[in-house]
C-alpha cells in the first residue's frame, strides 16, 4: 500500500531541477506576443477607439469586439460578461482591444498608439451603494442571486432563549497572488481548429468558452494545461477570457500568440475573493447553548455574475458554522458593483461566513462570561446531529477529535489561563481557537449534474494510464491519483502514470475545485484502476502482473471509463435549499498564539496548531502542505493583505504593496491529521484543499482579542485597523 505513505511526488524532480515547463517557458515557431488594452474607468460608455495614424499598423494585428466570430460572451453561468467590452464598460481594467505583434517592443509601441475615450458614468463601488443603486448594473434590482435556508421555528427559538446576542462582521477582498502570473498560448491548426495551452485549473471550462466565442465544436477547440504555478481558484474561470483573447489574436494574425500577464495586470484584472458582510442575531441559553440563529449575508460580486451565485451558495451553507441549532434562518444575496468581478478563491464563500460565525461565537462567550472554546464545544456538531439544511451527519464527524488534538498539542487551556492574567511590558500575548467544517465536493445535486468521468487504460509493460481532466496546480493531484490507482489495482506506483491534461486526450472529470478532486474524481480513478486490474487477473489468474497484462492486451484493449454516480441517499432540494448539502464534511480546529506589540500594534503569530479531519490522508506530507499553505493564506488575509481601492481602481497593484507573508512572517505550523474515514471517499478520504482557508483568520482574531482585550469584527487586522479598534 502506498496510500497513507508519502512517496516522492512524480512532478518533484522536474520542479527542483528547473526543467518543468510553465507556459512562459514555452515558445512556438513564428509565435507573436499579445497584450490587452483595458478600460481606465470603472463605468461608462466607450465613445471612441483611436488607432494613431502615425503608427504602422501593418506590422501588428488588433482585435475588437467586432472581430469575435461567435458570441461576445464569456461562457460560464450567466451571459452578461463580454469577451471584449462593446459600447459599455462596467469595471476598471475591462478588456476592450487586443493587440499582437512579432516582438514585445513593437507590441508596447502599438499599445501606446491606441487611445480609448470613455464617457464617464458614476460607478457603484461598495455594497452599500449597490443595495440602493441609481441604475442597476445587473437585473432589475442589482442582485445577482439570493438564497434562504430555514429550519425549525425561529420565533419560538428566540422566545425560549435566555439572551439574544447580535453582531455584524465584515471581510474584504483578497488577491490570489499565485506566484506564476496567468498566461495562455493559442494557435490555429491546419484544419482551422483552435488549440490553447496554458496555466489553468479547468480545461473544459476553457473549451466551453472557446466553443461559444468562436462557434466551433469540441473537436475544433482543444485545451492543454501546462505546468501550473498555483491557482487557489484564481485560475478557475479567468483563463477562459485569456484563452479567447489569445485565440482571437492567433486567428487574426495567423501566428501562435502568447499572452502572459504582468504582475500588475494580473492583480488589477483578474478575480478576487468576494468582500462580504454578515449580520447575526442569535438566541442562546445562559450555558451557551444556541437555540436560534438568524443571519443575513451580503456579498459583493463585482461587475459580472461569473461564479458569484455558487460562491454565495457555499457561503450561505457555511454561515451557521459547525454548530447545532434547531431554529435557523439564513438569508443571503450577492450584489453588483463596478469593480472587477470577484470569483473563486480557496474556500469559495465559506471563509467569509465562517469569519462571521466564529467571531460571533466569541461574542456569545464574551457576553455570557464563558470560555470561547467551551461555548463552541457545547454546540459543535457531532455524529447524528442535523444541520441547518436538514442533513443528518451519519458518519465521519471528527469535530471533537480535532478539538482534543489541537488543544492538547497547543497546551491551550494552560496558555489561555496564563495569558488571561495581567501582562507586563509593551508586548501582550493571547491564544485563540476556531472550530469549523467544510463541505467536500459540489453542493447538493452538483455532482449528479456534473457526471465527472475518468478513464484508465492498460498499456504495454503492465502500465496503467489514468486519463482525467483534473489538474495539478501544485496541490499534488497527479501523485494522489497515481497512489490510489496503484493501490486499487494492486501494482507498484512506478507502473501508473497520469496522462497530461489535454481535452483531446482526457475526459471531462468536472472542474478541479470544491475540494472534490481526491474524494470524487480520485474515487472513480481508483474504481477504474481496480476494474482494469480485475479484468487482467480474470484473463490470466495465474500469471504475474506483467505477463498477465501482456496476455490481456494481446486479446484487445483493456480500458475502463467510469462516470461518477452519487450515493443514493444524497437528497437535495434546490428550491427550498434543504437536504444533503454535501456528500460529507471535513472538520477542523485551529489554535493560534500571538504576540502584539503595543507600540506598533504589529501582530506576530508565534505558533499555529491545526488539527484537521480529512477522512484519510492519501499522502500525509502533501496534506500537511495543503493545510499549512491554506492556513497561511488565511493569516495573510487576516493580518496584512488588503486591496486598496481608489475610484474603482487598485492602488496597490504590485507585490511590493499588496503584502503577502514572507517566511519571517509565517508562524511555525504544528499540523495534526485526523482521520475519521468517509465511506463514500476512496480509502476514506474527504476534501482537504479549501478548509484550511476557513479557520485561520478567526483563530488569529480570537488570540488578538485575548491579548488586547478588544474585539475585532472586521477584516483586515492590519496595525492601522487594529489601532482604530484599540484606541476606540
Amino acid at each position, binding site marked *: 500500500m502506498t496510500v497513507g505513505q508519502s512517496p516522492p511526488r512524480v512532478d518533484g524532480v522536474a520542479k527542483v531541477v528547473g526543467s518543468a515547463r510553465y507556459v512562459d517557458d514555452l515558445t512556438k515557431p513564428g509565435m507573436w506576443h499579445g497584450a490587452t488594452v483595458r478600460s481606465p474607468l470603472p463605468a461608462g460608455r466607450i465613445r471612441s477607439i483611436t488607432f494613431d495614424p502615425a503608427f504602422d499598423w501593418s506590422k501588428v494585428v488588433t482585435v475588437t469586439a467586432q472581430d469575435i466570430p461567435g458570441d461576445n460572451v464569456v461562457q460560464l453561468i450567466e451571459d452578461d460578461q463580454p469577451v471584449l467590452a462593446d459600447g459599455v464598460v462596467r469595471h476598471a481594467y475591462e478588456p476592450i482591444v487586443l493587440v499582437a505583434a512579432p516582438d514585445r517592443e513593437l507590441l508596447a509601441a502599438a499599445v501606446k498608439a491606441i487611445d480609448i475615450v470613455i464617457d464617464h458614468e458614476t460607478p457603484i463601488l461598495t455594497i452599500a451603494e449597490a443595495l440602493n443603486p441609481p441604475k442597476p448594473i445587473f437585473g432589475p434590482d442589482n442582485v445577482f442571486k439570493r438564497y434562504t435556508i430555514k429550519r425549525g421555528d425561529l420565533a419560538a427559538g428566540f422566545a425560549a432563549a435566555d439572551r439574544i446576542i447580535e453582531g455584524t462582521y465584515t471581510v474584504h477582498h483578497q488577491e490570489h497572488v499565485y506566484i506564476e502570473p496567468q498566461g495562455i498560448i493559442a494557435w490555429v491548426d491546419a484544419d482551422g481548429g483552435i488549440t490553447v495551452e496554458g496555466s489553468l485549473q479547468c480545461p473544459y471550462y476553457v473549451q466551453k468558452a472557446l466553443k461559444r466565442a468562436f462557434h466551433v465544436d469540441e473537436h475544433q477547440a482543444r485545451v492543454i494545461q501546462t505546468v501550473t504555478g498555483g491557482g487557489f481558484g484564481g485560475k478557475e474561470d479567468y483563463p477562459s477570457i485569456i484563452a479567447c483573447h489569445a485565440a482571437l489574436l492567433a486567428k487574426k494574425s495567423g501566428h501562435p500568440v502568447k499572452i502572459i500577464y504582468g504582475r500588475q495586470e494580473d492583480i488589477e484584472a483578474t478575480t478576487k475573493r468576494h468582500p462580504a458582510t454578515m449580520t447575526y442575531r442569535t438566541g442562546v441559553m445562559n450555558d451557551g447553548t444556541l437555540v436560534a440563529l438568524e443571519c443575513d449575508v451580503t456579498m459583493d460580486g463585482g461587475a459580472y455574475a461569473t461564479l458569484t451565485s455558487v460562491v454565495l451558495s457555499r457561503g450561505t451553507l457555511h454561515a451557521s458554522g459547525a454548530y447545532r441549532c434547531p431554529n435557523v434562518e439564513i438569508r443571503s444575496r450577492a450584489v453588483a458593483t463596478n469593480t472587477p468581478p470577484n470569483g473563486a478563491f480557496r474556500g469559495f464563500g465559506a471563509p467569509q461566513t465562517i469569519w462571521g460565525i466564529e467571531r460571533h461565537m466569541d461574542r456569545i462567550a464574551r457576553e455570557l462570561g464563558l470560555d470561547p472554546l467551551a461555548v463552541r464545544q457545547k454546540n459543535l456538531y457531532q455524529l447524528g446531529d442535523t444541520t441547518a439544511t436538514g442533513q443528518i451527519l451519519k458518519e465521519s464527524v471528527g469535530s471533537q477529535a480535532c478539538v482534543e488534538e489541537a488543544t492538547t498539542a497547543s497546551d491551550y487551556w494552560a496558555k489561555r489561563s496564563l495569558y488571561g492574567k495581567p501582562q507586563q511590558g509593551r508586548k501582550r500575548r493571547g491564544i485563540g481557537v476556531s472550530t469549523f467544517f467544510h463541505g467536500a465536493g459540489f453542493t447538493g445535486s452538483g455532482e449528479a449534474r456534473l457526471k465527472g468521468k475518468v478513464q484508465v487504460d492498460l498499456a504495454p509493460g503492465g502500465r496503467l494510464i489514468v486519463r482525467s481532466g483534473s489538474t495539478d496546480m501544485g496541490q499534488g493531484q497527479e501523485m494522489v491519483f497515481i497512489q490510489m490507482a496503484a493501490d486499487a489495482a494492486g501494482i507498484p506506483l512506478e507502473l501508473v502514470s497520469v496522462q497530461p491534461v489535454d481535452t483531446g486526450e482526457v475526459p471531462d472529470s468536472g472542474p478541479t475545485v470544491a475540494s472534490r478532486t481526491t474524494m470524487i474524481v480520485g474515487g472513480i480513478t481508483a474504481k477504474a484502476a481496480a476494474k482494469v486490474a480485475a479484468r487482467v487477473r480474470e484473463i490470466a489468474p495465474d500469471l504475474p502482473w506483467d505477463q498477465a497484462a501482456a496476455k490481456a492486451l494481446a486479446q484487445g484493449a483493456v480500458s475502463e471509463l467510469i462516470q461518477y454516480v452519487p450515493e443514493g441517499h444524497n437528497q437535495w432540494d434546490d428550491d427550498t435549499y434543504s437536504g444533503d448539502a454535501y456528500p460529507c464534511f471535513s472538520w477542523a480546529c485551529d489554535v493560534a498564539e500571538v504576540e502584539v506589540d503595543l507600540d506598533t500594534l504589529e501582530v506576530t503569530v508565534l505558533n499555529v496548531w491545526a488539527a484537521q479531519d480529512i477522512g484519510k490522508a492519501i499522502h500525509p506530507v502533501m496534506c500537511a502542505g495543503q493545510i499549512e499553505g491554506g492556513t497561511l493564506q488565511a493569516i495573510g488575509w487576516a493580518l496584512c493583505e488588503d486591496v486598496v481601492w481608489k475610484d474603482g481602481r487598485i492602488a496597490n497593484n504590485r507585490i*511590493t504593496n499588496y503584502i503577502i507573508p514572507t517566511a519571517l512572517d509565517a508562524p511555525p505550523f504544528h499540523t495534526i491529521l485526523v482521520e475519521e474515514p468517509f465511506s463514500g471517499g476512496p480509502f476514506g478520504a474527504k476534501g482537504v484543499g479549501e478548509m484550511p482557508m476557513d479557520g485561520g483568520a478567526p483563530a488569529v482574531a480570537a488570540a488578538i482579542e485575548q491579548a488586547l482585550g478588544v474585539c475585532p469584527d472586521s477584516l483586515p487586522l492590519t*496595525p492601522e485597523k487594529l489601532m482604530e479598534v484599540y484606541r476606540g
Partner: protein
Amino acid sequence: MIFSQPQSLTALFDELASAGDRPVLIAGGTDWIVEQHLKPTAAQRVLDLSRLAELRTLSVDGEGLRIGAGVTYRQLIEDERTRPWPMLAEMAKLVGAWQIQARGTLGGNVATGSPAGDSLPVLMAYGAQVELGSVRGTRLVPFEAFYVGYRRTVMAADEAITAIWLPTPAAGAVTQYRKVGTRRAQAISKVAFAGYAAGETIRLGMASVGPTVMTLPHTTAALKNGSDPVAALHEDITPLDDVRSTATYRMFVAENLVRAFADALAGR
C-alpha cells in the same frame, strides 16, 4: 540608451563633467531598474558604478568609519568593522531581503533619497557626512544639510557620492533603531526611527513621515531639556496617508518610538 561603466573614479568624474544632461547613476540598481520595469523612460545615459572597486571599500581610523558609496548592505552586515555602529547592521538586515542586501548600496540609498530610505535615519543619528567627488575635488556635506526637499539634494550636476563618513560613537552612547514596515522582510517602512544620545549630544532621524528623512529638532530639544518629547514631535512632523499606511497610524507609531527612546535615555 547609452550604458557605460567607468573603470575609475577619475573616469566617472570626467563623464559627469562632460556636456549634456546628467546621466542616471546606478550601482545595485534595486530602485532604478524597478522604476524602468514599471514605467520605461526615454533614451538617456546610464553610468553603472558596479565596476568601481574604489567605491566598495570600508575603512576605520581614529576619527570614525568611512563607507565607500558602493558598499552593499550585505557588507555592512558581514564586516566586523561596522560593530561600533550597531544600527548599521541592524538596519541593513531589514532592507528587502538577502537578494536586495547583496545588490543595494549605501551610496545608492542616500542618492535616491526616498523619504522611506532605510539607511537615512541611521545616518542622521550617527551624525554622518556625505563625501561628494567631482573633477573639481572632494567635499564633505553634513547629512542633515544634504537633502533640500523631496528627493532633492545639494549634489551638483557633476558630482557623485563617493563615501559616507560616520564619527566614532562616544563611549556609553545610547542608540535605538526601529523599522516599522509592511511585513518582516521585503518591506518598505511605514515609520523608521533611529536615535543616538551621548552626554549633551542627541541626534534623531525618522523616515516615512515627511518629504525626506526628518531630524526632529523640537523633539531633540525636548529630550535635552526634559520637556515632553511626544508633544514636541507634533511640531516636527505631519505624516500623510499613502498606499502603505495612514497619517494617524504613522503618528501613533512615531509617538511610541520617541517615547521608547526617551524611556531608554531615562534608563527605564
